[in-house]
Structures are given as structure tokens and as C-alpha cells.
């Protein structure tokens, strides 16, 4: 099978309980650009049970076709039945590209397709495109985020990637747009060896950084865990939340839900303070759309200053406690 025999851009239409994941519309939007380049049709691949009502939404947001795979074994997500079903339709239609949202579900499923289809899978891409050699590439931050890499899958097909949420804006919905629904039957059974025993909504600890108007984030340059007290106090004085870049989560000072960036949360607060954060690409993709960016770092050339509205080249230990006192004084 020559690679030129593989045609079509597929978007995995992740849904749970009959509700599409937001990444699906983002991927359909980006696929319009890819289609302009290759002329290949965009298909949304929709797996589940009683999910055909989602097809209209998929057409409205840019799908040319919907490949609908309904089966009782696919009602709730489980890795092995989804792997089996998606493998069967991909082997039948041979798309050239399959995109998945880099969600917990997408990142659970896509690596299994990489193995079953014996192809490449780029993790958590922040952009996609075609380069000067007409090669489809996936952009990922590499080596601590000081550089970007273009990952390519030169020979194997389909070319697959999980794509980070919130990187692309969905298109304006095309009201009443219609396309072809292809109904596929697959041979798949529920997994007797995997069972979801309980599902509960996540406890809202009231400490979520998503949706916070003010965020004070600490990074690698924070010297001691106890220094976070002053950052937290600053956040609370401004009605905001404490957050962190990855090093402080990796070393266990703060839980993962506090992490901003590529492998954490993407946030857009009105104000963000970056304290002792150099500003890797991974970090920036999680906060670059914030309203007002204020950064304190002792290194003059730190990349975070390139995207900051306000900066101070200083030791945070001399500034943050003083700022806390100053705000308290002015509030008194």
C-alpha cells in the first residue's frame, strides 16, 4: 500500500454521555486549513451509542462527512473496545491524518491506535501545518521549551497526533450545513476485564486556578517551599489563586491541579503574576492569553519578559513580601 493511497483528514469526535468534547470543534477548525492545502475531505469519526444527533453539530463546525459507529459496547469509553472499533474503520478507509484532542480520553486511546495501526503519533501538539517540502508536521515544544520541534511521520500512515486543547478557535457554525453520514458496523465487544465502578464530579475545592481573575504563579526559582506563603498571601489579597509552573509540581510542593502550561491547565486570568518563572514555551502556552502579565525574575534575559506587560528584574524575596505589606498598608 503506497502512502499516496491514504486520503482524508479524520477528527476523532470525542463524546461522553452524548456531549462532544470542546477539542472536536477546535480540531475541525484547524482541519479547514489542512484541507485548503491538500484538498482532502474532513471526516469526523463518531463512536458511541445513540449519538447520531451529534452529526449536525459536526457538519455545522466543518465536517464534510461523519463516520458513525454505534454499538452497545461503545456506549461508555473503554480503551480496548474503542481501539478495536477505530482500528477497523481506519483500516477500511485509510485516512492520511487522524487528529485526537489531547484530553485524558484522547491520550488514553490514541497510543493504542499507534500500535494497532503501526504508525506514528505525536503527543500534545500545539500546532499543525505543511512545511516548505509539503510535509505534514506537528509542532511540539521540546527540551524544556527553549525550542519548538516539527515532528513528522514521513512514511507510515495515517499520520496521527493528539492536539492540545484551546489552541484553535472553532469556526463560526455553518447553520444548516449538511454532509454525508456513513454508518459503519464494527465487530466489538465490551471489555470484560475493565470496569468503571464509580464516577463522581470532581470535588470543587474552591481553589481551582481555572476561572480565577487573578493568579500568582511561582516557578523554578522559588528557593524554599515556605516562600510560597507570601505568594499565596499576595494572591488572596487580590482575590486570586496561587498557581505554579511545572517544577514546583514535580517536586511535590503543589498539586497538579495548580500547574499552568502544556501538561497542566491553560488559563486566561485578567492578571497573572509570574514569580521566579523563566517562561518556557510549555509554560507560555498555558497563560499567554492572560489580560495583564506581570513578571518578577532575577534574570534579565528571561523569556517571560518577552510576553510581559510589566516586569521587574529582581529577587522575588525582596519584592513579594514588600508588595504584600504595601497592599495591606494601602487597604488599611
Amino acid at each position, binding site marked *: 500500500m503506497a502512502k499516496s493511497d491514504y486520503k482524508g483528514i479524520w477528527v476523532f469526535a470525542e463524546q461522553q454521555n452524548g456531549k462532544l468534547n470542546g477539542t472536536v470543534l477546535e480540531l475541525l477548525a484547524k482541519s479547514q486549513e489542512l484541507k485548503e492545502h491538500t484538498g482532502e475531505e474532513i471526516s469526523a469519526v463518531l463512536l458511541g451509542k445513540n449519538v447520531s444527533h451529534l452529526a449536525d453539530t459536526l457538519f455545522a463546525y466543518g465536517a464534510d462527512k461523519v463516520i458513525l459507529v454505534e454499538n452497545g459496547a461503545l456506549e461508555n469509553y473503554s480503551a480496548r473496545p474503542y481501539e478495536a472499533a477505530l482500528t477497523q474503520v481506519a483500516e477500511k478507509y485509510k485516512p492520511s491524518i487522524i487528529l485526537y484532542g489531547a484530553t485524558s480520553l484522547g491520550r488514553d486511546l490514541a497510543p493504542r491506535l499507534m500500535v494497532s495501526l503501526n504508525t506514528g503519533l505525536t503527543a500534545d501538539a500545539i500546532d499543525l501545518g505543511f512545511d516548505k517540502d509539503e510535509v505534514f508536521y506537528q509542532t511540539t515544544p521540546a527540551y524544556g521549551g527553549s525550542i519548538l520541534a516539527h515532528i513528522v511521520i514521513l512514511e507510515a500512515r495515517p499520520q496521527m497526533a493528539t492536539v492540545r486543547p484551546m489552541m484553535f478557535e472553532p469556526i463560526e457554525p455553518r447553520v444548516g450545513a449538511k454532509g454525508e453520514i456513513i454508518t459503519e458496523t464494527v465487530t466489538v465487544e465490551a471489555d470484560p476485564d475493565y470496569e468503571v465502578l464509580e464516577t463522581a464530579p470532581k470535588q470543587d475545592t474552591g481553589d481551582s486556578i481555572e476561572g480565577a481573575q487573578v493568579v500568582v504563579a511561582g516557578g523554578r526559582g522559588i528557593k524554599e517551599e515556605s516562600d510560597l506563603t507570601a505568594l499565596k498571601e499576595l494572591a488572596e*489579597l487580590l482575590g486570586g489563586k496561587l498557581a505554579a509552573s511545572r517544577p514546583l509540581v514535580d517536586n511535590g510542593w503543589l498539586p497538579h491541579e495548580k500547574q499552568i502550561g502544556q501538561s497542566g491547565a491553560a488559563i486566561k486570568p485578567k492578571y497573572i503574576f509570574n514569580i521566579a518563572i523563566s517562561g518556557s514555551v510549555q509554560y507560555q502556552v498555558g497563560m499567554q492569553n492572560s489580560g495583564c502579565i506581570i513578571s518578577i525574575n532575577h534574570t534579565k534575559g528571561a523569556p517571560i519578559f518577552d510576553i510581559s506587560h510589566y516586569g521587574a528584574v529582581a529577587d522575588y524575596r525582596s519584592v513579594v513580601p514588600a508588595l504584600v505589606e504595601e497592599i495591606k498598608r494601602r487597604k488599611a
Partner: protein
Amino acid sequence: MKILVFVKQVPDTDDVKLDPKTGNIMREGVASKLNPLDANAVEAAIQLKEKYGATVCAISMGPPQAEEVLKKALALGCDEAYLLSDRAFGGADTLATSYTLAMAAKKIGGYDLLLFGRHAVDGDTAQTGPATAAQLGIPQITLASSIDVQDGYVICDRVLEDSVQKVRAKLPALVTVTAEINQPRYPKPINIMKALKKPRFVWNAEDLGADKTRTGIPGSPSSTKEVLEPPKRNADTKYFSGSGEEIAAQIADMLHDEHLI
């Protein structure tokens, strides 16, 4: 119970230098360490061993110096160590890596539970765990924030975007763990000494019976074509300066002007 825990040696810094010719990571002269989340996977394995009894095998693919992380795993309480080392394994993407790790799991045999850290801090793909499960055709539980084994099942909590799940998978199964699952212990000096007497194996492609077209660069469909500088954005930054107190006062003035205080 036999537990296989997969560990990776990663650079001990984000400030990694690239070979300007090849674009590859330059490992020479860079200190390395056990991938932090793999330390959580090792801790989970040791806790299960302490609770129920188990043989814990630590496995790493890498150059000869990757034996350092295996020695650490042994000092923490693992029983045996397997280093998968061969020039033919070099340059592997997650497909080739998962194939190689699965071949090692098959050769060791008799496994009940495979443990991985959720992701490695250098590659950050989080793909090798689920891909290895697929290579072995076994169920997986990703993003586990707790783990227990009961009646032939592994039971875990998973923390997802907006829900928490309790799931169970029949053994043999593969689990990837998050940092929340436990607090890794430190090795005791006496155990570091004892670790040197524990069985350590080094296997190459031939030992694994691996197809060399499926390992390393030949077995890797994906590759890096280009590396580039991130686009610089000029935000026209306004700088505050002076002593800590002076800077604090200027920031407070700005916050006041913005009606934040």
C-alpha cells in the same frame, strides 16, 4: 504477584543543550536522575509488595549509564533490575520503545501488574505506558491517583478533567500513576549497599529476540524534521526598578490604577 515497574533516566535539568548538527539532545556532561513520576511508580510497587508480597522487577531502556536509575530502584526495594541496552534501541519513538519494553515484559514473563509514571519529564508524551499495554493486548488504567490489588483485579482512582473515577482492571494490567498517588521514600544507606548484591541483567536486542526493524530509528515512524526558535513577541514591557520596597510600591501603584486595590 509479579510487578514490573518501568523507569527512565532523564536529564536533571531543563536547560539541555542541543547538538547543532543533528538537533539531538546532548547527554554528555548533563547530570541525570530517575524520572520523578517513575519514582512514584516504584513507590507504588514497593507499597504493594509490603502489603501483599510481590517480586518487583525494575526495567529501563537506555545507554549503559542508565543502570544508575536501576540501582536506585533496587535500593528503594525492587528485587531485580533489567537494563535494555543496545545501539539498535537508540533514537526510538514511543512506538519502538513500547515494542522493546513489551518484548522485555514477555521475556521476563509471569507478570501481573505493569507500572509506569504518567509521563517522563523530558519527552512528556505520556504515550509509552498505554502503547506498551496495547503491545501486550492487556487493559490499562492511566492517570491513577491511588492503587490497590484485590482478588485478581487492580483498582484505581483516576482524576480526569471534570470527574473522578474508580475503575478496576483484571490482572495482568498496566497502570500509569500521577504524582498524587504517594510520596516516594528515600533510599536508606544500608539498602544502597544491599542493592549492589541484587540480580541485575543487561539485555540487548538479541537477548530479547527483538526484530531490529521494529526497534530504534528503523522502528520509529515519527522523527524530528526541524527545530526552531519560538517566535519572539515584543510585548513592549514596562520595567519597574529600584529596591524591593521601591518595586513593590510601583507595582502597588499600577494595581491601584487598574482598580485592583
